[in-house]
């Protein structure tokens, strides 16, 4: 870190610290369509991600209807069932969660929270969104090509991904791979912006250790994404080569449907290594922003500093680093050299330690707090519960021996949904309830919010707790129907039906949330600039919602860390980051 802090010659006067040339659009299109304002780009990302996420939600109903009530629906067949499974997974992981956390929250919060006027490269930032949109549109297009979208599972394992016998093995998979490559290119543009903005565009006084954990989480996740996505990129290109040019990177000599293939010598496991070299960090690309954001939600709404801030930062960094050496725990039964199991089981269980520490510190933040049970706080508590559950079941799957009987069963599905779907989505909702007032100037409706929380929290647990036990039983994942076995009792079918009903309810409840978003935009209670009495810079903007340039004529100067809540002696239970020591109101005893 080359800090200019101690080099007097680089000091700029506080007010004008690094003013940048802002792109000022005059027309509606310039402001809201071809916008270079990170906040507008953030909204564009968020709306696109949530839009495509709704498609994935509908796809999940398709599979749940089939699993809950097999032999009932004529419009679901084994082929479109697999397509639903595949696209649901792919959209939720990449096109919704990654895009929403980094493109949505990252774009909105990074400049505001570090005290910058915008991202450092606004134009590149804008292009990033449009490339992402193109990737989404290509993905959507795959529903309308001959053969439909790919049904190879979100992992897209070759050889089956590009062989007949798997749905969408021609057009579907081509569009999928091209769309992924585009997504990665678009993300790299955005990611460069997030990293450089965090490192170079922080306002005066904002040292790394004064940054809110939200920024730490998003920053580290972006670094992971930048370094992990190339693996997915090369594997996508290589699979396209195998499919279109007849190379044999992943394709061995094989006989498919009675026909001798033309490939020879390729290695399907190489793809799996490349995929999971990306795929495991991807888990943390989604988790780390959630970790960061939830830390801030807990701190603000418990009116207490986050417990063990330094350890929280170190844990984020450690998890980020370790996430690159655990990938093959997804491949214990893949047929790779079984001796790898020793190494990867060990690294995987080690990563549990910093993760557990984060959980402890979240709970310890509540300890001795002054907990306001607002909707964001409820979601944060829901996150902790879901994450503890998902994290602990991760210890089953990370430990190689324990993992073998459970791998490829519904236990895996239940585990990763608890840890990677329920937990992050709890944070997404909590974050939206938390920052919506800043984005729109109005509060989201509280009653609808509480209803949304309870239905989502209890509903998702009703879906996934029983699902683990189907896995213990040995019910495999990605099965269109499980009938015809001796070991699965009839009662498992009623359990599946129950899960489906819970899933349909949880899905329907999200419509209340969407309605709340729209209703509150017009009718919500005006929020003022800092409704939660939070310390971080985004709440200190002169305008709400913040205008282009974020901070009015002068940038804020930071005098304290992000967690000065309930400081002894201060009148108020929070001191904003931009309040100098001398200006803190202290009516009581001097301390």
């Amino acid at each position, binding site marked *: 870190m080359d800090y200019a802090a101690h080099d007097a010659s680089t000091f700029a006067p506080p007010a004008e610290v690094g003013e940048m040339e802002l792109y000022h659009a005059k027309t509606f299109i310039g402001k809201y369509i071809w916008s270079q304002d990170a906040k507008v780009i953030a909204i564009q990302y968020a709306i696109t991600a949530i839009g495509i996420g709704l498609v994935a939600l509908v796809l999940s109903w398709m599979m749940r209807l089939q699993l809950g009530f097999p*032999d009932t629906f004529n419009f679901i*067949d*084994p*082929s479109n069932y697999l397509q639903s499974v595949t696209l649901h997974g792919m959209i939720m992981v990449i096109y919704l969660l990654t895009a929403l956390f980094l493109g949505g929250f990252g774009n909105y919060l990074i400049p505001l929270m570090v005290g910058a006027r915008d991202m450092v490269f606004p134009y590149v930032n804008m292009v990033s969104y449009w490339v992402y949109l193109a990737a989404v549109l290509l993905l959507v297009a795959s529903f309308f090509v001959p053969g439909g979208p790919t*049904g190879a599972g979100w992992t897209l*394992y070759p050889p*089956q991904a590009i*062989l007949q*016998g*798997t749905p969408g093995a021609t057009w579907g998979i081509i569009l999928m791979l091209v769309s992924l490559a585009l997504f990665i290119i678009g993300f790299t543009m955005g990611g460069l912006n997030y990293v450089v903005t965090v490192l170079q565009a922080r306002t005066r006084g904002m040292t790394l250790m004064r940054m809110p954990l939200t920024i730490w989480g998003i920053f580290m996740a972006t670094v992971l994404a930048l370094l992990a996505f190339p693996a997915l990129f090369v594997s996508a290109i290589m699979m396209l080569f195998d499919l279109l040019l007849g190379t044999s990177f992943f394709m061995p*000599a*094989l*006989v*498919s449907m*009675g026909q*001798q293939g033309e490939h020879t010598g*390729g290695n*399907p496991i190489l793809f799996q290594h490349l995929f999971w070299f990306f795929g495991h960090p991807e888990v943390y690309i989604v988790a780390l922003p959630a970790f960061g954001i939830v830390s801030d939600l807990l701190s603000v709404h418990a*009116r207490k*500093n986050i*417990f*063990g*801030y330094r350890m929280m930062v170190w844990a984020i960094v450690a998890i980020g680093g370790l996430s690159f050496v655990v990938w093959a725990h997804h491949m214990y*039964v*893949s*047929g790779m050299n079984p*001796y790898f199991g*020793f190494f990867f*089981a060990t690294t995987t*269980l080690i990563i549990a330690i910093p993760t*557990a*520490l984060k959980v*402890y510190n979240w709970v310890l933040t*509540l300890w*001795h707090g*002054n*907990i306001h*049970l607002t909707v964001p706080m409820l979601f944060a508590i829901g996150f902790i519960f879901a994450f*503890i559950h998902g994290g*602990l079941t991760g210890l089953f799957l990370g*430990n190689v*021996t*324990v993992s*073998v*009987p459970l*791998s*490829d069963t519904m236990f895996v599905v239940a585990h990763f949904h608890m840890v990677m779907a329920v937990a992050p989505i709890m944070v997404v909702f909590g974050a939206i309830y938390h920052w919506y007032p800043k984005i729109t100037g109005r509060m989201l409706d509280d009653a609808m919010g509480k209803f949304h929380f309870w239905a989502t929290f209890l509903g998702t647990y009703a879906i996934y707790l029983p699902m683990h036990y189907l896995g*213990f039983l*040995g019910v*495999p994942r*990605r*099965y*269109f129907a499980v009938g*015809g*076995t*001796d*070991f699965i*009792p009839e009662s498992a079918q009623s359990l599946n039906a129950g899960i489906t009903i819970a899933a349909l309810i949880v899905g329907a409840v999200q419509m209340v949330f969407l309605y709340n978003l729209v209703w509150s935009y017009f009718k919500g209670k005006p929020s003022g600039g800092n409704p939660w009495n939070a310390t971080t810079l985004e709440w200190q903007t002169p305008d709400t919602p913040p205008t282009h340039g974020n901070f009015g004529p002068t940038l804020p100067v930071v005098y304290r860390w992000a967690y000065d*809540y*309930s400081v002894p002696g201060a009148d108020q239970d929070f001191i904003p980051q931009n309040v100098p020591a001398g200006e803190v109101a202290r009516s009581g005893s001097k301390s």
Partner: protein
Amino acid sequence: MVVAIVLALLVVGSVVFHLLSPWYFTPIASNWGAMDDTISLTFWVTGIVFIVVNLFMAYCVIRYRQRKGQTAKYEPENNKLEVWLVGLTSVGVAAMLAPGLFVWANFVHVPDDAAVIEVVGKQWTFSFRLPGKDGRLGTVDSRYISDKNPFGVNPDDPNGRDDVLASGSELHLPVGKPVKLLLRSIDVLHNFAVPQFRAKMDLVPGLVTYIWLTPTRTGKFDILCNELCGVGHYAMRGKVVVEDEPAYQAWVSGNPTFAQTSARATGDVAAGKQSYAVCAGCHGIQAEGNPALHAPKLSGLGDWYLQRQLKYYKQGARGTHDKDVFGKMMAPMAATLVDDAAIDNVSAYIKTLPDSPAPATVQGNANNGKRLFVTTCGTCHGPAGRGVQSMNAPGLTGMSDWYMVTQLKNFKQGIRGAHPQDMYGAQMALMSNTLVTDQAINDLVAYINTLK
């Protein structure tokens, strides 16, 4: 406040659910009890953490919820507490990891006395190859794979001549003897999983992977493919029968060797013509079928399919179900064919008969049927419904449509395909459930009628 109570209730509820759940591991049937022990250990450690942390959180929410005059404690960190927590967690993690690694070491090292059996996966069936008397498996290569040599055994390798080939998705194992399963795939990724054995592993084309185990109790268990392998993934099943040594040896000797399968003569058409005289009464001189007598068209079917069905009728794998009225009429007819050679002969003769399409009798919306055929049926039976021997899927195009309707209904109702010796019928039974209504069946068959 409510949230704290709910948290506590969820903790209690989860524990109760776990204790009362009838859905848990199937009773183990292999030596991998140690895997179950590591799972129990993991349950204890993680269960305690789950209960303690969540209840502590619930306590915090109650104790420190917002109240008048209460302020939070300003407490940036507590190094001692955090170090203790990290230390305790590390101990817990080590306690779970170390036994796991020991069991894994055991899993990786195959005992020297383990018998070797090869499992071959292809879309969407399992088959098995055992070394013959020489105790060695012949080499294989995907170039040798053909309908006559589905395992791809190298015909020039003397070690392969006496290899025992067990097609038909059923594997027998002797109880109490360690066995090393070599896993191989000839098309895409598959997985060999028997829930009662606990051990499982992928089958990877281009590689040979392995697991080992010792079956510890007799019984019949399901084999499931656990790695997504295409449309028929969920129907890729098999059975493993664990039995005592004599029964096992009987099973082994009941399967042909590679030399026997490759030396098998083609049927004698002239002899077959004589036997066919009996069949012609119902199925017609040209095997064109006769709906009035419920006799389907046979001409145009692959001889391999005719052979298989005739054998099923003879063995009682078909035509024995109470509700299979016309199948029960066929069974005694098949019994008139005295041996395999007679079956081969008559099949060979039928193959020589002209294949003119049977008249369409079923009304349905072909457009509705098309989607299912293209995405699902066609993957095995071929895009034009001509049948694919390597997929064990007979031709459908130009065959008696009323018969297909009957058979699809039979498959759905378990009248056909449910017999344990009908190796491929179970798969079709699963697939036929995709057709929810009678109308859907008619639509599908109407589409097949449009195929050329």
